[in-house]
């Protein structure tokens, strides 16, 4: 049976697009949720620290330390997101490989 190369290439192309779309749809809401959670935590902290400073529970130096610590925490959180993005990319790459191998294998009678 002759191989329909054009159809095969179209199958692969469509499969890759679908894979990318599905993965991106799952990943983006997660990123948004993470960003929101971090923003909420920081907002809560700043409100708390301001109140503590006013009541004398912490000093100005303490507040500076806490703010600097928050920035460093944000760096760590950003690295987590970068790592998760790399994991997603690796999974996408593996998905593409599996798709291509599966499609080409199906051509062999």
């Amino acid at each position, binding site marked *: 049976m002759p191989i329909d190369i054009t159809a095969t290439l179209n199958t692969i192309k469509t499969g890759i697009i679908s894979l990318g779309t599905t993965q991106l749809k799952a990943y983006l809401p997660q990123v948004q949720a993470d960003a929101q959670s971090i923003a909420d935590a920081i907002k809560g902290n700043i409100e708390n620290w301001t109140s503590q400073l006013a009541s004398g529970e912490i000093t100005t130096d303490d507040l500076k330390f806490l703010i600097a*610590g928050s920035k460093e925490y944000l760096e760590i959180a950003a*690295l987590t997101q970068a790592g998760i993005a790399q994991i997603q990319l690796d999974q996408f790459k593996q998905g593409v490989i599996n798709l291509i191998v599966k499609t080409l294998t199906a051509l062999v009678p």
Partner: protein
Amino acid sequence: MLQITKLLTKTGMLKTEKRVGRKLNMIKKNKRTKNLLYLLFLGTAAAFWGCNLMGPTIASYDQYAYIQTTSLKVDALNLMDSAIYSYQSEIKNVATVKINIQKLYEYDKNRAKNGITVKQWQILMDTNGHLFGGFLIRWRNSGKLKKAFIDDVKAIVDSSFSQIARLESRKVQTAN
């Protein structure tokens, strides 16, 4: 039919038609060849990709690293609670926790493609920073610290450890 063929041959139109027809066949064959080559390329690229020549870009999941991270988080936060006491009275506990974190840091440093996690540990433990490493220095310099401040820093350090553990938990497990 023969007369038409003779006429067409005379005017050279048949030759042209044959030439065009041959050219069209060549184009079709070339397109098929191109597509076949493209498919072969895709298959080879997929094979190389699968053979780790273009492999994963980040380390795979390590259960030891994950368990140690979560365990050391508890140790670090407990130690921070002790900062209401003098640094000197807790110096042995400080050394123990620092050494254990250092051991995990060295372990993570030697895992392939684990640069992101290593960077996270560096930020957390930086003695010039304002997370766990910086907290220990502040405690040492101040003698003891106030509970409100300890609790505030603890919350940030807690979240920082959790980020490191979270990334580890998301890494892909490889089959053993």
